[in-house]
């Protein structure tokens, strides 16, 4: 039990939240987005229900543009832990040819992620969905409840949130409505990495620096993960030592130049960093309040 007290209390709170959902909802699911936060959330679930398996499946909304290493890690993780994994692709969006290149990043995200997620939640009739979002990530998330109510249309009403007192979570919903639940609400990026290190939780290798092929666009390093990335005339991928602070769709995720190839080096680098982790997410910059807007429409 080497956990420092503040991590132990975060762990204990998250485990409590995970169990509360299983005790109160009929058909929960865990949104698994393969990143470090999902890895931590899944690890906490393994602990919360031990010696039983977590009594819910994992759901990955696949935009088909995730890094190949993410997909390999996803399948390996589900198999290793014996978890049921549902992979949902918005086939309709795919058929319409929606990609990060044919559409703007915000329209693409709306179709392939938000709509895809809504389709999956409707199809399986999940009444509660865990997400790995943290309040320190972004300022509209800083305002969101741990148990965040969604209407039958999956909409979030930030002005009419239920007061959330103590640990007395109000879990009541009407048929067709659902709850998004965020066990890592009170964690910071630093807490996540410290916990990954302390608990030896496997994460996608893309978080660690290695020489990878990149092109530079709009000030961001974009990794050429496969042949689908259209290269501009004269553009040549070059090998640079890079890593990712956050993982999403590869054409929309900026890498940072780094030599940090161990957990200790990552944590040290983060300590000295002057930018937030979401800086690498191109979809957040559409406009200042863009995260809130996406969330109101049903994005995680």
């Amino acid at each position: 039990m080497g956990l420092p007290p503040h991590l132990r209390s975060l762990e204990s709170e998250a485990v409590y939240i995970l169990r509360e959902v299983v005790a109160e909802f009929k058909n929960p699911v865990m949104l698994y987005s393969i990143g470090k936060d999902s890895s931590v959330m899944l690890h906490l679930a393994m602990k919360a229900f031990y010696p039983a398996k977590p009594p819910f499946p994992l759901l990955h909304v696949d935009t088909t543009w995730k890094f190949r290493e993410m997909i390999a890690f996803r399948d390996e993780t589900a198999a290793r832990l014996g978890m049921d994994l549902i992979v949902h692709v918005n086939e309709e969006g795919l058929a319409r040819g929606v990609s990060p290149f044919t559409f703007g990043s915000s329209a693409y995200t709306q179709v392939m992620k938000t709509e895809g997620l809504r389709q999956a939640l409707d199809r399986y009739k999940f009444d509660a969905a865990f997400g790995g979002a943290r309040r320190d990530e972004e300022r509209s998330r800083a305002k969101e409840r741990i148990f965040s109510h969604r209407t039958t249309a999956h909409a979030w009403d930030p002005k009419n949130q239920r007061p959330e007192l103590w640990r007395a979570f109000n879990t009541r919903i009407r048929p067709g409505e659902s709850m998004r639940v965020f066990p890592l609400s009170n964690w910071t990026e630093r807490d996540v990495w410290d916990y990954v290190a302390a608990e030896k939780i496997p994460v996608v290798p893309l978080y660690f620096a290695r020489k990878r092929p990149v092109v530079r666009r709009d000030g961001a390093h974009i990794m050429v993960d496969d042949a689908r990335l259209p290269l501009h005339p004269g553009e040549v991928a070059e090998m640079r030592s890079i890593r990712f602070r956050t993982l999403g769709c590869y054409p929309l995720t900026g890498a940072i130049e780094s030599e940090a190839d161990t957990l200790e080096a990552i944590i040290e680098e983060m300590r000295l960093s002057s930018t937030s982790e979401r800086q690498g997410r191109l979809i957040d910059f559409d406009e200042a309040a863009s995260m809130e807007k996406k969330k109101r429409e049903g994005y995680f």
Partner: protein
Amino acid sequence: MSGEHASVETKPSLPTLRFLTCGSVDDGKSTLVGRLLYERKLIFDDQLATLERDSRKHGAVGEEIDFALLVDGLEAEREQGITIDVAYRYFATEARAFIVADSPGHEQYTRNMATGASNADLAILLVDARKGLLTQTRRHATIASLLGIRHVVLAINKMDLVDYEQSVFDGIVADFTHAAKSLQFASVAAIPLSARYGDNVISQSDNMPWYSGPHLLAYLETVDVENAVSEQPMRFPVQWVNRMHSDFRGYAGMLVSGRLNVGDEIIVAASGRTSRVERIVAMDDDPTGAAAFESIVLTLADEIDISRGDVLCHPKQRPDVADQFAAHIIWMSDEKLLPGRSYFIKINGRSLAGSVTEIKYKLDVDNDAHIATKTLSLNEIGFCNVALGSSVAVDSYDANRATGGFILIDRFTNMTAGAGMIAFPLRRAKNIHLQAQLVSKAARSHIKHQQPAVLWFTGLSGAGKSTIANLVEMKLLERHAHTAMLDGDNIRHGLNRDLGFTDVDRVENIRRIGEVAKLMVDTGLIVLCAFISPFRAERQMARSLVGEGEFIEIFLDTPLEVCISRDPKGLYKKALAGEIKNFTGVDQAYELPTSPELHIRFMNEKPEEIADKIIRELETRNVIHG
């Protein structure tokens, strides 16, 4: 900003301090939090760039950076320049990690302040030096105290605007000391500061040499808020029963107070059954004990009946078990708290039907007076008696924040309508035990060759409730069914003659009728009830008193214009003339049924046809036989 985040370093040995900022609007709460983060170099370059852009667009301080915009994360907040909801912020220094709840100052968002206070150990109460203590300052101090916060920083802000004058500071401190006399604060630290210019925020200000105490951050880093939860009696509310296979039965939950060791004798508070802790099960090595706030799963030596909501404790430190208690309630809903109305009350993880039986008084936060009242409105604080559908383990909130706190949930909207803090259990219910009866409802209805049921006719005055109900009863009588009729006007002449037409009395009216209908159903009768019954919550309450399928809600959906033109008792005429107050459809709302068993649009059909339709429905439902 050169990226030096040395401050992110956390010393692992110190507990996190959860604090809340509160005070009236414009006293500078968000500015203070923004300033703390900025000075500690915890705002990243890209966040700062966004902030500068937003400051030019929405900022209230000209060309300077408006720190409030950093924490006011919602679109509406930035547009209106106010904080609507609690924002949570996280930072750490060499000495300590902090979780900050930045709460709104506007009165209509007081409920969000209570939300932030419920999990905080300390409150920073901001006061604008120019304005002194305001109603909202006192309100927040009262709520902080009620919610169990024992440590307060009285942050007297905007000292730059009063020329850093000591007499202003001293005056406000004296006012607060007087105002806080009745509140339960263990420590109050008064600090003069300017959030906008950083005086006494993270370093000692040169502008106020007369102040010799610590600056804000130094105080927060060192204040001892240890509330000795580990020393309190052990409480383990069972959250979830882990039945992995037939021979494993684990009780999962968070230890909310005290300590628990393997081998300890435990008792289930409500049932009084005892056992011994056999194992605390963990994925790594099983621990030999657990401390307060740890989520664990344990197994017991004996197989005893335990489910979610049961509280395990040590046999010599048992909580009270009660179905009635006195509690402070902070009301958080636009819809008033009405005594007698049924709410879901969530306590120790269990959601029970319950109601407020009496509001003793509400608090006047300005002068700490007790005011007599029949209802509680949004943001009001009342001292109430609460009754639950069954008994639960309770502690006083002062003794235990986890087992002494509860929320009230509106049964219709599912919104969290209020928060309660238990003061003491009420014992008068102890000697009333339900009598087990030898002759059952089924036996009584069997000899009548029918299924008992409540036919609940609801609708506006003049919708035709009594007319139709009487026709239906005649038709039932023809078939030798055993019936009873409860009619609005008749009941009000007898059983309910002490009740008027206010919201509170309407709730009590329906509650009594519901109870009478239930007794009649128990005797095997088909009970026809014809009442306007304008509120969903009370119709729902009447429904919940009888068995599944026994309540048949019949909504006579007659348009208001039709009712007014019929006006059989001449009441609409009087109501429209203002001679009758609280008349449904005129100056009081009728809440439409959402899923009645029968929805009758009563326009052109003959009453006879409608009665036949209802009889056919009763046949379909096997209430009577065709």
